[in-house]
């Protein structure tokens, strides 16, 4: 696709217009000719694709209820490739055309609902924003590691949600507003990245510590706590200490060993590890006891 800015004068046709044919008509004729050409090109392209351009997916399958899927296995799918196709597009194609029992979560397909985080070619990714063209073949698609598999690519998210809820992720005050609270631009900037979390669970799945310690709050929940701790609109000392007490418990911030895997896989580029370190510093500064 050409995304060049057109010159303001694109009237390159220098030939005299044939009498009786308006500019508009000529344009329409040109358009028709162009369309014909493009259709032919598309057809040729489709034929070529059918012949060779398909993408090989290796997809994890498991269903506790279906006899031949109780033993986990990988299925192969060959999906016709079109430019711009994402891993999610390919999965949907495979489901809609080859096997309607292929199961995975997805919804917004624009990287904001967070439901299609999976393990693609050995890394946690959001399928909807992962271009197939960037993946080596065969594209290996598995459910998020370290989580119970419900079926095929669907994992149980309950534990993740529990950890998110454990940090009391909400403003505590009960006041009835007459107007907005003030927040400086600097402060909004400070919390901005932390508020982008879409709860996809990629970070938690990539974290070795969380894999070994089921009670560890994990990067997403700690980031959520950061978002509230750092927000100047909730600035009562008592509340801040309350939040720190949650964070510096045995399975809180000190469990993080700064391996950066959460930061690496975050599809929203949230500097998770940094946020955890900052909260460790806050805990020290407040001179609260270690475990």
């Amino acid at each position, binding site marked *: 696709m050409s*995304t060049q*800015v*057109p*010159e*303001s*004068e*694109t009237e390159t046709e220098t030939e005299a217009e044939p009498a009786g044919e308006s500019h508009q008509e000529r*344009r*329409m004729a040109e358009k028709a000719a162009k*369309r014909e050409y*493009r259709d032919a090109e598309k057809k040729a392209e489709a034929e070529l694709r059918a012949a060779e351009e398909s993408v090989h997916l290796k997809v994890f399958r498991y*269903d*506790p*209820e279906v006899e031949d899927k109780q033993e986990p296995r990988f299925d192969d799918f060959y999906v016709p490739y079109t430019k*711009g196709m994402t891993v999610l597009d390919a999965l949907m194609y495979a*489901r*809609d055309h080859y096997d*309607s*029992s292929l*199961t995975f979560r*997805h*919804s*917004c*397909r*624009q*990287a*904001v*609902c*967070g*439901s299609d985080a999976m393990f693609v070619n050995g890394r946690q990714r959001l399928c909807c*924003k992962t*271009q197939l063209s960037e993946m080596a073949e065969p594209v290996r698609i598995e459910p998020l590691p370290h989580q119970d598999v*419900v*079926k*095929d690519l*669907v994992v149980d*998210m309950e534990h993740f*949600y529990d950890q998110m*809820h454990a940090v*009391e*992720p*909400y*403003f505590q*005050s009960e*006041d009835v*507003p007459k107007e*907005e*609270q*003030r*927040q*400086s*631009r600097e402060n*909004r900037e400070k919390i*901005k990245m932390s*508020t*982008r979390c*879409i*709860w996809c669970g990629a970070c938690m799945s990539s974290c070795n510590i969380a894999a070994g310690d089921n009670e560890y709050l994990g990067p997403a929940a700690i980031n959520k706590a950061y978002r*509230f701790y750092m*927000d100047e609109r909730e600035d009562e000392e008592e509340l801040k200490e309350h939040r720190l007490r949650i964070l510096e418990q045995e399975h809180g911030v000190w469990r993080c060993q700064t391996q950066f895997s959460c930061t690496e896989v975050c599809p929203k580029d949230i500097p998770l590890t940094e946020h955890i370190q900052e909260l460790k510093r806050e805990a020290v500064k407040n001179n609260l006891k270690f475990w």
Partner: protein
Amino acid sequence: MYEHDVIVVGGGGAGLRAAIAAQEEGADVAIVTKLHPVRSHTGAAEGGINAALREGDDWELHAYDTMKGSDYLGDAPAIETLAQDAPEEVFQIEHWGMPFSREEDGRVSQRPFGGLSFPRTTYAGAETGHHLLHTMYEQVVKRGIQVYDEWYVMDLAVTDEETPEDRSCHGIVAYDVQSGEIAGFKANDGVILATGGPGQAFDHTTNAVACTGDGYAMAYRAGVPMEDMEFVQFHPTTLPSTGVLISEGVRGEGGILYNADGERFMFEHGYANNDGELASRDVVSRAELTEVNAGRGFEDEYVMLDMRHLGEERIVDRLENILHLAEDFEGVDGLKEPMPVKPGQHYEMGGIETDENGHTCIDGLYAAGETACVSVHGANRLGGNALPELIVFGARAGTHAAGGDLGEAQIETGERGDIEYDDTELPYQPGEVGMDTGGVAADGGAVAADADAVVEREVEAQRERVATLMERDEGVQHSQIRADLQKTMTKNVNVFREEEGLKQALRDIREIREAYQDVYVDDPSRTFNTDLQQTIETRNLIDVAETITLGALVRTEFRGAHWRAEHQERKDDEWLKHTLVGWNDGDPTIFYRPTILEGENKTYEPKERSY
């Protein structure tokens, strides 16, 4: 059987706000959602929330702009309620922690949006919906409101008196997606439908895959009329490859549109000589398609949206999300290149007919958010008016369902009051086919005595329905049916509409309904059976698509988003009225109710909409 005072179906913006309001009113509330609340499509909203917060602006101006934008098809009591309640609601969510963009003095920022006479759109970058959704979900967590996530609601449990206005809703039937368990949920005080839009009826849409019109279809089959469904908003700036939305905020900040000849066509071709790119969405969408049809588009498909001149600092500050979307989904660097855009289905202005308290004509049944038509958007929704609708009418529905006093509603509902019936000849009989009514409760049979029995009867009906779908070994799959439906809707019921195309769509929908008689579920598992869920969703899409098409065929005028080839003028003498389609036990009836133009202090006189 589960039991709560108020049951909210849907965990998006309207559902969460309704649940909070009902809980504040003292009710025991539960949210039942087929996703998890944070996965809801409200999270994809980008632009902002309109509210008159500042000196120089007031609710009356907001109401006026909204009425004008609606092309005088909004109801004044609803529009004025929206404009009056929005500021308080915005302050409320700010206090709940919403990370709004800020001015130097720390107050929330506002920016200009299309069709607004004052820059009254508050926003949080270009990801306002994401922050709104998460902020409200946090409050739901704080209050300990029970959430049944990944429970798919299949139908309503409604009594079956002859006329819908005599019926009562006593609950819902849902199944646990993870286990396949089908269960009844009894609602002592009310059921609130907040299930979002039906964008999946079209194949190029900004809507999530989950937006399958479930609430519309359930209410419709229970007997609530669908109002003004022909008014489908097409957003002028969606990415051509995927339908991903590029916020109106880009144009609000000064982004420009140009065609393949390099012309800033909104001005140069006279589509909107004053407001240019910031004319309302219907105007810009038609302008873009007219350019493409005249051969001045790129690749015969799209135009360009350019924001480079805004400068990196401003773009990153206010539109950063747009850079990511353009990069991830179109491979375009918005700082260096213009973005390809074309119109895509975006929002259903019509919906479940409700009054300004969110109440439908069925006792105990409410609707809020996109799925409802309180009638604030009329024939065309202004950018930035969807999010205040969610919170204002979500809150009102929640309060009212829980027994709060909001005063007498001025908007009438159902087949009563000042209505007239339509006599357009239809090319095919719309509505029910054969025996599969999708377990509609309202079948004119014996009236069940108590609430438990109504819910239990519906649970049985849904169990049978699922058993039938699962037992079939062959037939047609939902994916084929859905694709056929999307194809005819996109071809015939799009931005530009012609009589013959609309009739063709109705004939196609009839065939699609017949094909649906043979639908089957291939996946034999009860565990997380998305095949089953999508099969049921597809039935809902068929019903919704038919109401859209019926409305579009009978409305022989050009108003707001509804353009008709054969009728190129707004006909106020004839058409200052709402289109209503009642399911009528599978034999749809079309009728009309006059638009209410009398507001609190004034009457809104229809004027020409110029931008």
